[in-house]
C-alpha cells in the first residue's frame, strides 16, 4: 500500500467534517466568499457528497464592494456545483449607504459581521461552513473545527468544547448555532497545491495582469469600477498586479508581481517575506488583538 500524502490526509479529514455536520445539523449552509479557500471548500463538498450535489445552499454575505470578477465567478461556481446560491446584503447598510471610503471599520462591521448574523437568522441556518484556516492568524490557531456560538452568535474562547480524535460534538440548544471549518488544518501552500492538483477554478485576480491602480496609505488599490473616489492628484496607473487575498476592492491591497501562472504565484509565495493577511486593512485596525476581538463580536 502506498502511504497517503499530506494532501490526501487533509482532503479525507475535510470530507469527514463536511459529512458529520450534514449528518447531524438540521439546516446547514456553506459561506462562500468566492476566494481561493472558498473555492477549495466548495470543491471538497462536491467530492464529499458525489454523486449527489452538496445538500445545502451557498451563502454569499455580500458588501456590494467586491471585485467584479468575483461576482462573475460566484454565479458560475454555484451553477457548476448544482447548488442554490443565496446572496445577502444588509438592508440597513444599503439604506445608509455604508461604504469603505467614508465609514472605515463600520463598513466591515455592518456589511459583514452584522450581515452574516442577519442572514443566518433570516434563513434559520443552524450550522455554517467557513473557509478559515488555523495558520492564518494567531488567534485562529486555537479555533476548534466546530465552533459553538450562542443565540446572539457570540464566540466565547473559554467555553469552546474539547475536540478529540475525529469526534465532533454538534449538539446545541434551539437558537444556538455552529460554525464548522473543514479547512482548519490546511496551510496557504496546501490550498495552492490542491488548486493545481485538482484544477479548481479561481478568480483571475489571483494571477498577475496589468490593472488600473492607485497607491494610497502604503497600499496598492485597484480601481475596479467608477465608484472609486480619486483624491486630488491621484491618477490610476496600469501596473502588473495580483492579489493574495480577495475582499472588498477598496480594502484589499494588491502586490506588484509578474506571476501570471499558478506555479508563478506559489513560487512568489514561497519566496515572499510578508504574511497573507498583511494586504488586508481589516486585521490592523486597532493593533494585534484585532481579529480576536472581531471573532468575539461574531465575525467569521
Amino acid at each position, binding site marked *: 500500500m502506498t502511504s497517503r500524502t499530506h494532501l490526501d490526509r487533509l482532503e479525507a479529514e475535510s470530507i469527514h467534517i463536511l459529512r458529520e455536520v450534514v449528518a447531524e445539523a438540521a439546516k446547514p449552509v456553506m459561506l462562500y466568499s468566492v476566494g481561493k479557500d472558498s473555492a477549495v471548500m466548495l470543491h471538497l463538498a462536491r467530492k464529499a457528497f458525489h454523486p449527489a450535489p452538496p445538500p445545502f445552499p451557498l451563502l454569499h454575505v455580500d458588501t456590494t464592494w467586491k471585485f467584479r470578477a468575483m461576482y462573475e465567478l460566484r454565479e458560475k461556481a454555484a451553477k457548476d456545483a448544482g447548488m442554490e446560491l443565496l446572496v445577502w446584503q444588509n438592508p440597513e447598510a444599503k439604506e445608509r449607504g455604508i461604504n469603505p471610503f467614508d465609514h472605515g471599520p463600520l463598513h466591515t462591521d455592518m456589511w459583514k459581521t452584522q450581515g452574516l448574523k442577519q442572514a443566518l437568522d433570516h434563513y434559520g441556518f443552524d450550522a455554517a461552513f467557513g473557509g478559515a484556516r488555523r495558520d492564518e492568524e494567531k488567534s485562529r490557531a486555537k479555533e476548534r473545527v466546530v465552533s459553538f456560538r450562542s443565540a446572539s452568535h457570540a464566540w466565547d474562547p473559554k467555553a469552546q468544547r*474539547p475536540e478529540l480524535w*475525529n469526534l465532533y460534538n454538534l449538539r446545541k440548544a434551539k437558537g444556538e448555532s455552529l460554525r464548522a471549518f473543514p479547512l482548519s*488544518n490546511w496551510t496557504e501552500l496546501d490550498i495552492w497545491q490542491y488548486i493545481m492538483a485538482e484544477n479548481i477554478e479561481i478568480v483571475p485576480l489571483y494571477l498577475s495582469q496589468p490593472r488600473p491602480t492607485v497607491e494610497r496609505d502604503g497600499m496598492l488599490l485597484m480601481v475596479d469600477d467608477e465608484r472609486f473616489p480619486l483624491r486630488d492628484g491621484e491618477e490610476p496607473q496600469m501596473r502588473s498586479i495580483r492579489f493574495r487575498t480577495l475582499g472588498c476592492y477598496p480594502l484589499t491591497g494588491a502586490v506588484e508581481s509578474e506571476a501570471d501562472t499558478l506555479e508563478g504565484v506559489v513560487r512568489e509565495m514561497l519566496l515572499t517575506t510578508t504574511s497573507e493577511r498583511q494586504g488586508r486593512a481589516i486585521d490592523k485596525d486597532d493593533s494585534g488583538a484585532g481579529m480576536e476581538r472581531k471573532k468575539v463580536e461574531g465575525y467569521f
Partner: protein
Amino acid sequence: MNRPDDTAYRADALIDEDIGEYLDRHRDKDMLRFITCGSVDDGKSTLIGRLLYDSRRVFADQLEALEADSKASGTRGAELDFALLVDGLAAEREQGITIDVAYRFFATEARKFIVADCPGHEQYTRNMVTGASTADAAVILIDARKGVLTQTRRHSFLCHRLGIRNMVLAVNKMDLVDFSQERFDAIEAEYRAFAEELGIERITAIPLAAVTGDNIATKSEAMDWWDGPTLIAHLETIPVRDQSSADAPFRLPVQWVNRPHQDFRGFAGQVAGGTVKPGDAVRILPSGTTTTVRAIPSFDGDRDSAEAGDSITLTLDDEVDCSRGDVIASADDPPQVADQFEATLVWMDAESLKPGRGYWLKLGTQTVTATIAEPKYEINVNTMAKLAATSLDLNAIGVVEVTTERRIVFEPYDTNPTLGGFVLIDKVSNQTVAAGMLHFALRRAQNVHWQATSVGREDHASLKNQTPRLLWFTGLSGSGKSTIANEVEKKLALMNRHTFLLDGDNVRHGLNKDLGFTETDRIENIRRIGEVAKLMTDAGLIVLTAFISPFRAERQMVRDMLPDGEFIEIFVDTPLEVAEQRDVKGLYKKAREGSLKNFTGIDSPYEEPQAPEIRVNTVDMTAEEAADYIVSRILPLK
C-alpha cells in the same frame, strides 16, 4: 536574522530555479502530527516558535510585530522572544501561560508537520489529552537543569494512555548546564527506567537548546559529543499512525447515506481500518447482515480500492438495511457488539461525573445514551497510584464501567482508536464532559438476553382499554405533589382508569431504602423509579409519580426510557417561601437548623423544568382545582 543553512530547509534555490520540480516533490510529502508537552518553564513555546521561525513560517511583518512585542512584553530583554509567536489569545499573553491547545504548521523538505501545542500544568490535563488524541508522536520537554519531574511522568503517562507509541524526550536548555553529556546521559537513564514501568517502548532522547537552535534543525557545535539526529531529522523519520492500521481488518463507520435518486444508494464514511475493494465480502453491524461491495464510486471515477484514513462512498450488492451509526466491516473478521464495557475516562467538565446519570456517548458515528457506574478507581496522574473514588472531577482520570442503552459496535481502543475512543456529552448543557477509551466488553452483556414476551405492551394496554402514561410530578418538598397526585388518581379511578401512584416516601421505605440523599444516590433513586414506572406502563398502567426529582438530566433520562409522548412532566410550581412556610413535615426547619443535609431548595439545587407539559400553580389553585386541570389536559387516554 540568520536562519540555519541546514538541508532540512534548503529549498530556496529550487523554488527560484524550478518551481515545477519543487512542487512535485512537495506534493508527495506525507504528514506527521505531534504533540509537544511541557510547561512554560521548559521552553516549549520557545521551541515551537523556533521550529516555525527556522522553517520560514514567520514572515517579515510578523517578525516586525514580534520585535515590537518582545520589547513590550517579552521575557528575554532585547532578544527575540519566540514564545510570543505562539501564545495567541490576549488573555494568555497577559498571564504568560498557554491555556488552550493551539495547532501550528510547518514543513521541511521531507514532511509537513502539524503540532498540537499543549499546556503542561496539571489543571490542563484535558487539553493535553485533546492534543494527544490525534498525534502520531509526542515530544516531551525536559529542562536539563531540573531533569525528570513529576510533570514529565504525567505527560508520558497521558500520551501513552492515548495510544502514542513514539516518544521523543527533548532535553532542553542544555546551554544552561554547559552542554554536559554526563547530565544528559543521567536524565535519559532516569527517564528510561520510568518509561519501562509504563510499557513505553520507542524512546529517542535528544539534547537541545531551543533558544539558540542547537540540535533543532542544525547539529550543535557546542555538543560535538552528540552523534544522534537533530530533532527535525528525527521527526522526519517517525512512522505515521495510519500506516499501521492499513493492515488491520476493514472497518467503515457509516456517516451518511447518499441517496440522490432511486438507483443509487451509497454509504459514506472514513475508513477506520484495513482496506477494501469491489467484490469484498462485508458484514453490517450490529445487525450482522452480510453482502458484497459493488463499487467505490468517487468524484474522479470509480476507485479500485481504499484504505484506512480515506473518506469514501461504497455501494453494496444487496438492498440491505444500513444507516448512520452502523459499521461495514470485513465479513470474516468483524468487530464486537456489546452494551457494557470497562473504560478509562478523562473528566473534562467543571461539573463532576454523576454516576447513574444518562449522558450522550458518541463513538465513531454512533450516538447512544450511556450511564457510568461509580469509578472502580481514580488514577493519580503524578504517581500512577490507584485511588478510591466515588466520582471524577475536572481533569481526573479513572477506570469505570460504562453501560449503553443499546448495543454498539466497538473495538478496544488499543486495537482501533476510532472504534474505541468516545466522548460523553451532557444532555442538558450539551458540553463535551469526558473522553473515554474502551478496554473490553464485560462478560455480563453477552449472557443477559432480553426475554421476548408473547403478550406485548400494546396487548396489555388494549386489554385495559386505555393509553399508558407516566404522569411525572416534580417540585420542591412541600409543594403539594403528593396531595395533587393523589387527587388525580382518585379522579382517574372514578373514570375506570387503571392507575398506580408511586410516592417518594413510600418508595424510599422499600425499593430504595439503601439510598441516601447525596447527588449520586438521588440519581440512582430516580433511575430505579423510572425503570419501575416503565415496567408498569409496559403493563398498560397510567402511572403517577410524586418525587422532588430536582435534576433536569434525570427527568430527561426517564423521559428517554419511554416511547415518545408517554412521559408527561407536571411541574408543581410552588415558590420556596410558600413551601417553607407550609413545612408539613417540619423538614425545612431541620434543614435551616443544619440538622438535615442536602435538602433541596436549601443546600441542594432544584432545577426547574424548562418546558413541562403541564404547570400548576398551587398559590392560586387549590389541590382539587389543580387536579381537575391536570385531568382535563391528559384526557381522553383511550
